[in-house]
């Protein structure tokens, strides 16, 4: 594959893109400063819905960050050449999204200025506390892994580093899922299936992000993704999306039949206003069924842009799913007195509503901006372009077709 040296025009375009990213980051930071200065009174979050839009963005970024590394793992740990070529890009995306997600979580803290305390005071029983170790660890391991990939001398170490990253990534997603799994009192979150569900969601979301970035990178260089690569990765995405569907179904069925959370399920699935709409319309139709059709239906899957569209839809579905999970889980009243009707000045027994305000939305967007800018700059400065062996790919195409 021959990459033509960048032209002047391209250079301008790159500065424009990087500037755009930086502007989004700046807006996000300004929103965070505003929230920090005025207090969370300027957000839609309150004492009933304590985690809001920033958490939807942050958890998406963190979970997808761990999943995007899957591409590298398949390459390094399971030795698949096609994926190995993409390992550096996968590592870069992982670091970029993790940085974006963590920034959002940190900036949303009531006392974001106490970051040092968060780092130095450690409570070993807290899953959140473990994450304080898991996240920086992830940065470190992926950075080393990238180094082994990109520095020829270090190449022999790629496999162990890739393996370490693989294990660490599973721990990290388990940790993220467990943040919710440990909330014993909340109907929505106390489910053992959450940890594996988060892992599989991370695979799907991460791969979807990867596919989009890969396509944009190729297009930027005036190239198209080889058919064999496209086929392989699109099938994998389909499998992950279907697996997420399976886990979500298990989660809701468990709630219905074993945990007897019928009222909660009714709320999320039928009469909870925005939540059923996002669940059925957003996650199931737009984020699951439509992408699967785009990926597998013969007439559709060969269309140009179908894979990128499917990936975009998977990401949209992910946001819908997280919104239902995080906000919906809190909007449903806590059962302090199960079986009783309750009323109080603190909205006990009442379904809560949440309307996100601009600052918290912009803060979340700022996280995406961080990931975007880091990726754009990283890809441009270092060589992250996958360099496939075309002959090998052609051979693969003949085998698969």
């Amino acid at each position, binding site marked *: 594959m021959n990459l033509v040296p960048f032209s002047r025009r391209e250079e301008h375009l790159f500065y424009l893109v990087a500037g755009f990213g930086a502007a989004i980051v700046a807006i996000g930071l300004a929103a965070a400063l505003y929230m920090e200065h005025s207090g969370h009174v300027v957000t839609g979050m309150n*004492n*009933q819905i304590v985690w809001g839009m920033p958490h939807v963005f942050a958890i998406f970024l963190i979970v997808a960050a761990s999943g995007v590394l899957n591409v590298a793992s398949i390459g390094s740990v399971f030795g698949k050449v096609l994926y190995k070529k993409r390992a550096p890009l996968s590592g870069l995306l992982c670091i970029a999204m993790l940085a974006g997600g963590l920034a959002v979580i940190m900036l949303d803290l009531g006392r974001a200025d106490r970051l040092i305390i968060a780092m130095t005071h450690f*409570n070993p029983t807290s899953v959140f*506390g473990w994450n304080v170790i898991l996240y920086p660890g992830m940065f470190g391991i992926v950075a080393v892994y990238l180094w082994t990939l990109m520095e020829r001398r270090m190449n022999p170490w790629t496999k162990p580093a890739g393996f370490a990253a693989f294990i660490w990534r599973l721990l990290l997603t388990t940790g993220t899922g467990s943040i919710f799994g440990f909330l014993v009192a909340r109907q929505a979150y106390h489910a053992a299936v959450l940890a594996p569900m988060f892992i599989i969601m991370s695979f799907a979301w991460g791969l979807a992000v990867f596919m989009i970035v890969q396509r944009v990178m190729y297009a930027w260089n005036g190239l198209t993704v080889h058919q064999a690569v496209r086929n392989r990765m699109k099938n994998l995405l389909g499998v992950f999306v279907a697996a997420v569907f399976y886990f979500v179904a298990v989660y809701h069925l468990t709630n219905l039949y074993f945990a007897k959370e019928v009222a909660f399920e009714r709320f999320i699935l039928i009469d909870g206003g925005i939540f059923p709409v996002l669940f059925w319309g957003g996650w199931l139709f737009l984020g699951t069924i439509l992408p699967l059709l785009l990926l597998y239906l013969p007439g559709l899957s060969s269309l140009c842009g179908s894979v990128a569209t499917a990936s975009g839809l998977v990401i949209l579905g992910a946001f819908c799913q997280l919104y239902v999970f995080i906000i919906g889980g809190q909007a449903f009243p806590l059962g302090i007195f199960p079986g009783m009707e309750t*009323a*109080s000045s*603190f909205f006990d027994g009442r379904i809560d509503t949440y309307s996100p305000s601009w600052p918290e939305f912009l803060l979340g967007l700022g996280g995406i901006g961080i990931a975007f800018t880091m990726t754009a700059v990283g890809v441009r400065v270092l060589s992250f372009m996958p360099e496939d062996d075309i002959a090998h790919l052609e051979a693969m195409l003949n085998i698969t077709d």
Partner: protein
Amino acid sequence: MSNNDRRGFLAASAGLGLVAIAPGVHLMQVAQARPAGEPASKLQRWGMLVDTTKCASGCTACVSACATENGINEQVADPRQAAQWIRKIDIKDPKNGRQHSLPMMCQHCAEPPCVDVCPTGASMKRADGIVLVDRHICIGCRYCMMACPYKARSFVHQPLTQQNPEVPRGLGCVESCTLCVHRVDKGQKPACVEACPEGAMLFGDLEDPNSDIARRIAQTATTQVRADLKLNTGVRYQGI
């Protein structure tokens, strides 16, 4: 006679035999507030018993007393964002129409989920069972609010003025009922207990078998809210 005095009296009279063998100092320690500078002791576990049969629906004397005592006086435009350390809940059993009214606040769990999940250790349980937030370590992540089964915690959403110097509060931190720890350490009862016109709230040492509260719990049917979670709450209810 204040509760502590009474407990001291009861302890003294019930434990006459003990006095002969145990040094009087010991009894004094159990009965009275610990001297300033001495750490909270495991020998005590402060708790509360609420008699819901006495608690009147519509009465909010405890809530007002708490607000005054702890300086919770800020004007908050959105009631959802207002801090509530103690609130009155009206409960109705849809099966038989029975109604109760009761105060709900931090239950001072012996196995507090808020302490387990707090990443920094700002949420903590004192040796004497009082669960507190260290205002100087709390980073405002609100994980403890997600974890508390009783919605007992509030996040301070806006800057505060006019605070009670004995009860530090602050923007961006989480807070909850302290069982009026600043009063308890001086040998007084929590403000809500003192304010209740019906005498529906009883405060005392759950570990002291001779305290009023321990004896009432031993003699009458009392409940822990969400006992199924096995948090061993320090606040107990009677009549529900």
